[in-house]
């Protein structure tokens, strides 16, 4: 595959706040790539660097083989779908979509043709004369897609485009965007904080945090083989526990010894072990390769029960379709291939157990914790 965008050693700072730190990322042609991370991780800034709205303090942006750091946004062959669509409310649907081709001084006939092609692509035939304000959120979203694609971009940048839609519509639009990408055969760079969206749409997922790339891989890789505690915690639910590698294929945590599939660590190396909640089987107490704990909470989630278990003060999460009573002591059997071992990282220990789900609850009573820092990115766009 051919590289279409290459970001080399990109650093972006707003004052003292480093938003992107020495970021390296290449994007292949015709790929659906998703930048995934919590707010303030630098994913939107990365997108804006590519679009040309943010000039990196250092590093090179290479587009189709040329360095484009100095090329202004209007001369880049990329188009953006903005978070709140940014449609022109003083124009009707037709004029919004015709906006790009008109600027490029295309002939009237060509413009008419492009607009009707685009309207067909997004299933909005016959909406030409409608005003933007008369459209629903989903329809506005489609107009935004049509408007961006009418410019025949080589790369389409999507900045949390589905954030404002409700859950069901979001799922439909996910499918549709994926289909449009396949049909147009262009590169999509998609920004989201929704891990499910990222997993279900992308060819490649880039997990970001604190202005750095944590992991790049296929959705399966990211889910099954997270490189550190941050990725494991951010993608899906996971129990992340301190463990010691006794030998190749042998690990101990929670006071029990388990077989696993991981090797190549030093003897007695301290590591992080990840166990997905759906991979834990509830068994009788005392079986080999199992932990013993006491159920502290059971929540019905529809598809399954979410059971929190206290194992020596560490709260584990189990997802199971069987009902168990609160207060019961149980055994938790974990198969070798359900255990994923990661090297220790700066994130080790940060995510702790399931006493709380959110980072915010972990810090909620901490008066010295600075939330502003997290939100700085969003505020300093200009």
């Amino acid at each position, binding site marked *: 595959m051919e590289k279409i965008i290459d970001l080399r050693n990109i650093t972006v700072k707003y004052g003292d706040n480093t938003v992107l730190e020495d970021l390296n990322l290449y994007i292949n042609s015709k790929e659906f790539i998703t930048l995934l991370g919590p707010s303030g991780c630098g994913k939107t800034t990365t997108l804006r660097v590519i679009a040309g709205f943010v000039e990196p303090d250092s590093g090179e942006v290479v587009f189709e083989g040329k360095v484009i750091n100095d090329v202004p946004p209007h001369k880049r062959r990329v188009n953006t779908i903005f978070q709140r669509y940014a449609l*022109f409310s003083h124009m009707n649907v037709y004029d919004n979509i015709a906006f790009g081709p008109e600027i490029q001084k295309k002939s009237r006939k060509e413009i008419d043709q492009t607009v009707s092609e685009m309207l067909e692509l997004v299933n909005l035939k016959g909406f030409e004369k409608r005003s933007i304000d008369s459209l629903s959120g989903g329809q506005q979203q489609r107009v935004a897609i049509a408007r961006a694609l009418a410019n025949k971009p080589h790369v389409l940048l999507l900045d949390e485009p589905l954030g404002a839609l409700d859950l069901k519509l979001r799922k439909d639009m996910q499918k549709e965007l994926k289909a449009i990408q396949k049909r147009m055969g262009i590169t999509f760079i998609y920004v989201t904080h929704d891990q499910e969206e990222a997993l279900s749409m992308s060819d490649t997922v880039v997990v970001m945090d604190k202005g750095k790339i944590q992991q790049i891989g296929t959705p399966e890789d990211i889910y099954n083989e997270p490189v550190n505690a941050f990725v494991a915690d951010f993608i899906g639910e996971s129990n992340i526990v301190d463990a010691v590698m006794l030998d190749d294929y042998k690990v101990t945590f929670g006071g029990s010894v388990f077989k696993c599939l991981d090797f190549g660590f030093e003897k007695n190396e301290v590591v992080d072990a990840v166990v997905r909640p759906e991979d834990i089987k509830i068994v009788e107490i005392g079986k080999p390769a199992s932990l013993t704990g006491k159920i502290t909470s059971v929540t019905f989630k529809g598809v399954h029960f979410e059971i929190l278990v206290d194992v020596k003060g560490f709260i584990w999460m189990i997802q199971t379709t069987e009902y168990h009573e609160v207060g019961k002591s149980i055994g938790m059997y974990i198969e070798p291939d359900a255990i994923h071992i990661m090297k220790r990282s700066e994130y080790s220990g940060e995510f702790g157990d399931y006493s709380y789900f959110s980072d915010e609850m972990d810090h909620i009573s901490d008066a010295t914790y600075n939330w502003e820092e997290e939100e700085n990115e969003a505020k300093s766009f200009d």
Partner: protein
Amino acid sequence: MKQNLSTKLLRQPYIVWSVLFILAPLAMVCYYAFTDKSGAFSLNSISQIPSYLSVFGKSILYGAVATVICFFLSYPFAYALSKAKLSAQKTMVMLVMLPMWMNFLIRTYSWMTILGRSGLLNKFLSLFGVESIKFLGTPGAVILGMVYNFLPYMILPIYSVLSKLDNSLIEAAKDLGCNRLQVFKRVVFPLSLPGILSGVTMVFVPCVSTFYITQKLGNGQIMLIGDIIEMQFQQANNYNLGAALSLVLMVLILICIGVMNRFGSSEENGGALYI
């Protein structure tokens, strides 16, 4: 829609207010315009209107010139202001509004002492050996008075629209291939039209009907329709003609605003400001 009692009660004072201070005076204007001194129905006053047509025309011309000047002064300023730092914006808006805290008459009066034969400006010019120039009583002085007095009413609505303009719209335009000039022509300007229209209305209307500015800065030598109307009430004691003139002025202003709004809204719907 059903409205509860509190909504109805809350509305009452406003209704009373409108009847007392808007509808009743309007009715009185109409009454006087179509009656004679004895109170009998008469078209006498209305029939005198044609002889004042040139004054009407002149008033509208003065108002239009002042409005256009206000617009060209205000738009760049409001645009720059909306791009400035937030603290600077607050200070500047304060400074724009500051003169409005002072009485309108005093503000106009003070221009007399600046523009007079032995006023500040002429004194300053005499330092360079320039002979005393007649400013007061010229159309320029009247227009200056209008622009000076009503400028804030143009700046503020334009600024308010521009400062609320979503930055992502500007980025979207750039993203779709617009250079800076095209961004302005195709997105910023059309989207600021509502502000421009309310600014134009708020400047044009008082300019057309003013009499104080023409009296003081026009030195009584420039007669606009406001002066004629004022004269009917204050000196000629001809309420009927005064009311008829007021009525016609009102209709003319309504027509002007209607034309402007139509022009504005067609921009909004048609959208295409071609380059």
